[in-house]
């Protein structure tokens, strides 16, 4: 009996112990926090970073090291999250009230996160002066700016200079006929003209964006927002019809079985000169360079017009930036770091590291080479066409990718049918 009573008591203690453990831990945390605040000790800022590109990470590490050296009481702790689970991680953290101090922020999240009061208003920051007009539009709502970008990716043609030489292409094509002619020459030289890794759906979108930024958005076509709210119909828009016609014309110049090929294979093909071009964002350069550091690449705007002067680089305001959580207990320090991260000095370092095309004013671009030099020249010459947002909302984007994929998989034969399917899908989503 005594033994039984003892076992019952022990089990009860075990249960009570498991419950009280949480309370003890919590009490300890509170106590630690009080001590930390009281002594104004080291402040650790948590930064959820959604970009894992090697050059970006190398740049960020150096920026953090420089900042921490200048501000010994502030430590930046990076939490790396893969791009696939980034939204999931950030959304879950905010919904649970466990907010980071800084986080990578997408323009797509403006409508969800800003009204929820999660993002700090940065309108008072002196850094706003460092951006050209229109470049912060995607992070501005009701006159308030909520995030600061370092760079701008835009959709263009990335080409391998050696492959072009091998195929006897002396000049970068500046008309549509010239572009198709270049594709033909590459094919005749045994080089895949356009490498496309459509087994990854974002690549279908990237190739489409490269084409519709030039063919639709930079060509006085309707904004994507007006397609989403159904003010305009795909079937009634000449520019969208021309978009599908362009895809139809370039499809024969893509690698065999694009839907069975991943984009890393395409980067490798471009880097090794097995392919001549990739139609996608400027990040193609960094990825292809990682595959073959000795290769030289260049970029140009997809020349959709027969008039060379019309074929300027389409560019929309950046869509990714860094924001500070409104509920951060160290918001002041977080803003301080963000301002340093987006300063002209850090942006110069960003360009030197080859991480991308910085858009902060005052950047020294003298040390840039290859495609980055091309990009800097384009930016400096001002021969760009500022366009409205190039991305559909997620649900529309998925429908768009599926419909364009269907068009490719059906051999690019029915342009009118593709336009009709897009209208049907967008009508359904609008309901």
């Amino acid at each position, binding site marked *: 009996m005594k033994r*039984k009573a003892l076992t019952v008591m022990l089990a009860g203690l075990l249960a009570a112990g498991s*419950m009280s453990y949480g309370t003890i831990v919590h009490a300890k945390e509170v106590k630690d926090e009080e001590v930390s605040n009281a002594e104004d000790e080291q402040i650790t800022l948590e930064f959820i970073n959604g970009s894992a590109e090697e050059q970006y990470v190398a740049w960020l590490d150096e920026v953090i090291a420089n900042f921490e050296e200048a501000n010994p009481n502030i430590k930046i702790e990076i939490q790396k999250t893969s791009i696939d689970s980034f939204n999931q991680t950030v*959304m879950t953290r*905010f*919904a649970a009230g466990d907010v980071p101090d800084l986080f990578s922020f997408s323009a797509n999240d403006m409508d969800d996160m800003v009204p929820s009061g999660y993002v700090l208003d940065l309108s008072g920051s002196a850094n706003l002066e460092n951006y050209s007009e229109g470049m912060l539009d995607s992070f501005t709502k009701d006159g308030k700016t909520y995030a600061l970008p370092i760079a701008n990716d835009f959709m263009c043609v990335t080409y391998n200079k050696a492959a072009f030489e091998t195929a006897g292409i002396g000049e970068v094509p500046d008309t549509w006929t010239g572009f198709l002619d270049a594709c033909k020459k590459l094919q005749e030289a045994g080089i895949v003209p356009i490498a496309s890794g459509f087994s990854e759906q974002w690549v279908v979108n990237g190739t489409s964006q490269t084409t519709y930024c030039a063919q639709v958005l930079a060509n006085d076509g309707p904004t994507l927002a007006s397609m989403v709210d159904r003010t305009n119909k795909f079937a009634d828009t000449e520019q969208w019809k021309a978009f599908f016609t362009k895809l139809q014309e370039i499809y024969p110049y893509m690698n065999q079985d694009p839907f069975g*090929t*991943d984009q890393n294979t395409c980067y490798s093909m471009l880097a090794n000169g097995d392919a001549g071009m990739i139609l996608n964002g400027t990040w193609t350069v960094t990825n292809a360079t990682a595959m073959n550091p000795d290769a030289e690449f260049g970029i140009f705007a997809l020349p959709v017009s027969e008039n060379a002067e019309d074929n300027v680089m389409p560019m929309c305001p950046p869509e990714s930036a860094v924001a500070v959580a409104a509920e951060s207990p160290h918001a002041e320090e977080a803003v301080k770091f963000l301002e340093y991260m987006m300063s002209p000095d850090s942006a110069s370092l960003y360009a030197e590291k080859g991480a991308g095309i910085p858009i902060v004013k005052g950047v020294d671009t003298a040390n840039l080479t290859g495609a980055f030099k091309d990009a800097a020249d384009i930016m400096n010459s001002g021969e760009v066409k500022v366009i409205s947002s190039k991305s559909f909302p997620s649900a529309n984007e998925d429908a768009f990718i599926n*419909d364009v994929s269907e068009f490719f*998989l059906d051999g690019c034969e029915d342009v009118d049918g593709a336009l009709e399917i897009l209208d049907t899908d967008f009508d359904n989503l609008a309901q």
Partner: protein
Amino acid sequence: MKRFRKEMSYFVFLIPSLILFGFCIVYPFLSGIQLAFTDWNGISREYNFVGLDNFVKLLSDRNVVQPIRTTVIYGVGVTAINNILALFLAVNLSKKLKGKAFFKTTYFIPLAISAVLASFVWKYIDSNLFSEILGRSLMGRRETVLIGIIIISLWNNLGSNVMIYMAGITGISKDYDEAAMIDGANGRQRFFHVTIPMLMPSFTICVTLTLTSSLREFGTVLAATGGGPAGSSQTVAILIYDYMFKYSRAGYAQAISLVFMVFLVVIGLVLTKFFRSREVEA
């Protein structure tokens, strides 16, 4: 009174587990149910109750038709091929065979590999080997993408069913087989009239678990194709994920999850009842 006290003393030992179970399983499950009746976007701390709106919308949502079709074809395909193949291998591995241990290990090793890694390996094989042999890759075409994913799933998961069937076969007394042999039954007759009925408990486990897990398939498809090309391999689980995390419609995603869960429970119960009714006493 004495008996009651004795039983209560047993119950006390369950308290730590019950607390954990309640906290980790029951509470999230119940709080998840109520979200199906809201317009929660997955991130806001506020949401509105919308009654049965999400369920009404689900009835007219054209986006769910293709994923349901894909899920059913995939689930039935995987379950049928997996179990037939696993049974075939188990029967052969239960015979006296040279290198038996090697084969058993070979079938079992892929189980230790995650679905994501298995998908990456097979994606590579598909785009480099199958595309050379067949002219086009399996997973790059709408018509064959499910075959490609089923191959990955079989390679990755076959081992567990092989083991269960082998355990079942080992448990069948040799007496039944010998008695049937004396009665003049040939090998085929002994397999269908002795082995299969005696293996019914294994079928109950293998078929039910394979079907319910393949109907919930997420990781393999997401890593192998992301639901493409052109949405042709999108399963219901991926659709739920898209609504939850990409389209910010968590309430609606929860409603789909709830309906899907009920469907899975019904399928599981029906299958279990069907196979249990055919089990024979040894």
